[in-house]
């Protein structure tokens, strides 16, 4: 039986490198893909992925599973680092970055490394994609701009040419609705 995420974090907190290796097999792809999606540059995405896992190695003992899922913790660290780097870079991202993140909802599949976990991630993707497609387009757009570009609400207002109040309403309603849909999905498929 595969160790749980919590087991792995517990072992990492005891400096067991093999547990970090397993955690990477499980979530390295998620972290790298998110970093790449935000910074749009594979070299920078690799650096961020390294930093994220080293941070996990150094701070595993501080992870509190009762406060958030491990994927939430990992993606938060990744996103924070990636957006920070994005803001510090003056040049436009290149490589895989798509100019309009709203359009970039292509999902790919297929990884043989840890099949059980990857299947779980793929199910997560499908669940989210379904929820996103049910969101009104303008709400989906601001959520993606906020999440992947780290744009503030005034920045989004300027970018989309909409009043600030409208953007704030879309962000609020969009995230609340997304949460409601995911919760309702979870209650149907616990």
């Amino acid at each position: 039986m595969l160790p749980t995420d919590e087991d792995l974090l517990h072992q990492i907190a005891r400096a067991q490198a093999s547990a970090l290796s397993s955690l990477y097999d499980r979530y390295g792809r998620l972290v790298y893909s998110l970093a790449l999606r935000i910074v749009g540059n594979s070299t920078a995405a690799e650096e961020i992925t390294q930093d994220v896992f080293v941070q996990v190695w150094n701070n595993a003992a501080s992870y509190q599973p009762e406060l958030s899922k491990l994927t939430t913790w990992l993606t938060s660290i990744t996103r924070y680092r990636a957006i920070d780097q994005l803001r510090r870079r003056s040049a436009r991202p290149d490589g895989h970055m798509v100019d309009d993140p709203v359009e970039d909802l292509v999902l790919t599949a297929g990884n043989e490394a840890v099949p059980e976990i990857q299947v779980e991630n793929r199910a997560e993707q499908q669940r989210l994609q379904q929820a996103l497609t049910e969101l009104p387009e303008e709400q989906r757009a601001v959520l993606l701009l906020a999440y992947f570009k780290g744009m503030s609400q005034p920045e989004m207002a300027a970018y989309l040419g909409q009043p600030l109040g409208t953007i704030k309403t879309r962000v609020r309603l969009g995230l609340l609705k997304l949460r409601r849909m995911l919760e309702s999905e979870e209650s149907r498929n616990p």
Partner: protein
Amino acid sequence: MILEHPTDDLPAYALGILEEEDLRAVDRHVSGCPVCRDEVAQLREAAANLAFVSPQMEPPARLKRQIMDRVSPVQAPRRRGLGQWLRNLQPAWGVAALAVIALLVIGNLVLWQQVRTLTERTPQSFQVASLNGLGSLPEGRGVMIVTQNGRFGTLVVDRLPDLGADQQYQLWLILDGERTSGGVFSVDRYGYGAMVIRAPLSLNEYTSFGVTIEPVGGSPSPTGEKVLGGEF
């Protein structure tokens, strides 16, 4: 602190996109309001799902190696006692077997003879290398016990002086003249110490070993006196 719950701002707060002034105000409120803290936690969980929208790209194979290199003992020095060391051994059968052997060694009066006996009993399972005292510490003794496949190894030392709070011993794994840290360790007041060896390569790859005295946490390459040396 904002007296009313800043409900409208919590989604943007959870997404980390509030402007500085609003951010400070909401931050102050949330830190003192369990209701809003719980709401933010739930919104963050929902927002974190957006990460799965990213097209899943395969990272280059070298990335994992680079990460594992970065968490080697030199980069992440942690001083550990024997209790911590033993707790570290639990999950892996190979390492657990080494722990049993290490405890046998500890429990006997003559470390050197016991290891030799053990080696004779299980010649196919483990390799053993001895390390002898050098320089100012000729009394020092050490033994490395390595699984046949070289994946796991442990070092047990005896008759080395306690270096105090500012210094530690550091094991070096030597291949073609290049020295790679195998970890840092301290000894107790009786001169005994033990450590699980961490290495980027199979331990079978290395041809000789040394122990030097380094600043606490270890050094990227040897800087202090070499006090133990040996080879397979």
